[in-house]
């Protein structure tokens, strides 16, 4: 029950933020020169003025901005995200089609970054100032400093073009008609390079945080107590240090969910993945306002949900937080 009310309170608090974001974005996009009909005409290579006027009426672009915004918000209240001008179908459908690829990419990249970052961070902390620490920290620095699109392109050149081990892009083999396990493996093969590409920069951050956090917790009194009562080193690290050192890592997941959505725009472009990031980019370029606002809406919900889950995870890791003190 407490969880439910916490969830509702969180949601209610984020509604005004959501409203400000959507209205702001709507108005901001009005400042961009050109509208969806201009983009459409550019795409089809020209047309005459009468046809262009008719298209403007067709998309409701001849109405004043205030009326357009009012219409949009009114529809939003009834949870209708409107109609996409590019795709010619409801925005909800368009987004639902693209959501799986992005979610899959995000979840796998986040898990990989988190797990590998944690493992490397622990190793570095345990061997602090020895060669494993130096090697891991240097690697982290390289990952952090290199732009992800470069990693992506290099990955494609080496593993797809030269060695031909992995596909250079796409979400699955098109037209092959795989089902069941074969399809899962096919998708996994396609997602391997993009996942690693998106994850590396986050891995570097997790590694640094984990290392620092471990080093800090290792100096605390209860670790000394644990050692003093004769626990072996593994038990000390796993049961006492790790659990406490994880808190800042979990915080970071919540913060980085948004950044990861942003990063996926680049990765989805480089690997030709049909995800939300690329959809957002296409919507901006084609001035498809409804779709763009829909994506922002869904992304905001996504970030809110992830942060909520993070809060729950806190409670598991540190019972003091869940008790409401």
């Amino acid at each position, binding site marked *: 029950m407490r969880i439910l009310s916490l969830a509702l309170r969180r949601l209610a608090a984020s509604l005004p933020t959501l409203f400000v974001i959507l209205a702001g974005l709507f108005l901001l996009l009005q400042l961009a020169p050109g509208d969806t009909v201009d983009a459409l005409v550019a795409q089809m290579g020209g047309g005459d003025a009468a046809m262009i006027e008719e298209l403007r009426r067709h998309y409701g672009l001849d109405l004043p901005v205030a009326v357009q915004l009012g219409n949009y918000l009114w529809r939003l209240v009834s949870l209708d995200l409107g109609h996409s001008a590019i795709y010619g179908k409801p925005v909800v459908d368009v987004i639902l089609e693209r959501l799986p690829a992005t979610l899959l990419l995000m979840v796998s990249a986040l898990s990989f970054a988190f797990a590998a970052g944690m493992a490397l961070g622990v190793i570095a902390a345990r061997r602090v100032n020895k060669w494993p620490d130096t090697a891991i920290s240097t690697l982290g620095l390289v990952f952090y400093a290199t732009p992800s699109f470069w990693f992506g392109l290099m990955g494609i050149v080496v593993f797809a073009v030269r060695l031909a081990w992995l596909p250079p892009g796409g979400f699955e083999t098109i037209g092959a008609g795989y089902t069941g396990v074969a399809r899962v493996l096919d998708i996994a093969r396609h997602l391997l390079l993009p996942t690693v590409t998106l994850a590396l920069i986050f891995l570097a951050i997790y590694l640094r945080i984990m290392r620092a956090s471990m080093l800090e917790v290792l100096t605390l009194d209860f670790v000394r107590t644990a050692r003093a009562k004769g626990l072996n080193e593994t038990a000390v690290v796993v049961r006492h240090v790790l659990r406490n050192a994880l808190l800042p890592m979990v915080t970071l997941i919540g913060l980085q969910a948004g950044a990861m959505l942003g990063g996926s725009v680049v990765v989805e472009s480089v690997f030709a993945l*049909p995800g939300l990031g690329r959809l957002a980019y296409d919507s901006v370029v084609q001035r498809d306002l409804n779709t763009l606002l829909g994506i922002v809406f869904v992304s905001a919900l996504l970030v809110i949900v992830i942060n909520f889950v993070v809060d729950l995870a806190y409670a598991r890791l540190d019972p003091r937080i869940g008790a409401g003190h």
Partner: protein
Amino acid sequence: MSFTRRDALKTGPAVALGASIPALAQAQAKGEPRRGGTVTVHMQGEQRILNPALRASTGVYVVGGKIMEPLVDLNAKGEPDPVLATSWESSPDGKTITFKLRQGVNWHDGKPFTSADVQFTAMEMWKRHLNYGTALQLYLDGVDTPDAHTAVFRYSRPMPMDLMLRAMSDLGYIAPKHVYEGTNVLENPANTAPIGTGPFKFSKYERGQYVIAVRNENYWRKGFPYLDQIVWRFIPDPAAAVAAIESGQIQISAEGALPLADLDRLKKDPKFEVSSRGNEGNAVMNTIEFNFRRKELADRRVREAIVRALDVEFFCENFLYGFAKPAKGPIPSSSPKFFPKDAPAYPFDKKKAEALLDAAGYKRGADGKRFSIRLVPAPWGEDITLWSTFIQQSLQQVGIGVEIVRYDAAGFLSNVYKDWNFDLATGWHQYRGDPAVSTTVWYRSGSPKGAPWTNQWGWQSDQVDKLIDAAAFETDPAKRRQLYADWVKRVNDEIPLWMAIERLLISVTNKSLQNHHNQPRWISSSWHDLWLSA
């Protein structure tokens, strides 16, 4: 097996063609066509509609042109080739054009193709919605259907037969009446799941990912198509597309969408053919558009000076890897019928340019500058970005300062064509086989504000307008040609805008493909005779 275009190519015409397109004759010699296989095609952008009867755009034809068919296409020599129409005839006054239609053709849903489909498509799609079609069919009064396989187009003003036929390959696709009748044609679901008469049947469309079409077993060209399946994949990122073609994931990238440096590299790879053969029907010209509302640019001498200050030859060789050449005005050399042999060139001459500017009264100031202008480049294609920087550098040399202002597609169109917020603009003009289809609108005055790729420069010449109007309704081909020659001469003298570079789209094709690029608008054509070697 019936006599096909491919067979025709093997014999007489192939010899004649061999001279101009040597690789084509070679491609014929690779043995018997093999049935089966999947060809995957790179698509850079995604269109909102796949119905070429509603949207005239190469991006639509590349997919829709395999599924739906026009009345007339082009053959290997660039001449009209019967598809859904078998013969055509014009009345002496040019106001009536009669098409005899092919019999025994069925839509993919099994219904027969008849003249009612032609009538419906012409009146409800070409005349009302199709870009360029609305202008072409402006004086179309109606289409009579005396029987199921005859369609008679009635015009209130003469329609030149050669214009009609050349336009039909792009603007003559037929849609099924029984699918569209009584619906909002722009919203009809068949626009993204097209039903046609073509060699391939629409199968699946995953937005942002791919389109699949499969073999039409009941195609009217018996024994065709050879392929089982065509897959179009949407890959907007050029680097990703290059990787896909190098790893063999895709076999064709046809719209010139790959980076020039990669094209240059792939050219040396024996696995690929990098060439513009088969793209002759799709000449692209780089323009310089002058805003006449700037008093400096309204002066003919200044415009000539700007044209003369640009070393186009140098640019083509060094920046475009030789994939282009200098143009001579509005008609590209790939259109021999209208291309003027004696076109005045404005060869690169910096001294002359400086002299012209001095004569026009714009002497260099104390800082060496005469005046400054804003250049708005279109965002399509790497070549335009390079070209705009080249313009900037070159004009600086003769004392004209240039500030480049970049926008995305929507921003470019609204700034240049709606708000006239530019001094110089540069982009692409696509020449579609006949000056009347999409070229003369760039010069004809009286275009409403906001219509892109029309005369929005503020330039006006009664004489040029008269020539354009007269040629558009002239049914005698020889007179028509003369009118266009006069027109070219006039606009080349006046330089209301300058088409500086002409080039053809460059295709990258995997060598496993056979019978590809065998007609001037091949990427848009039906691909019924395309096959894949083992």
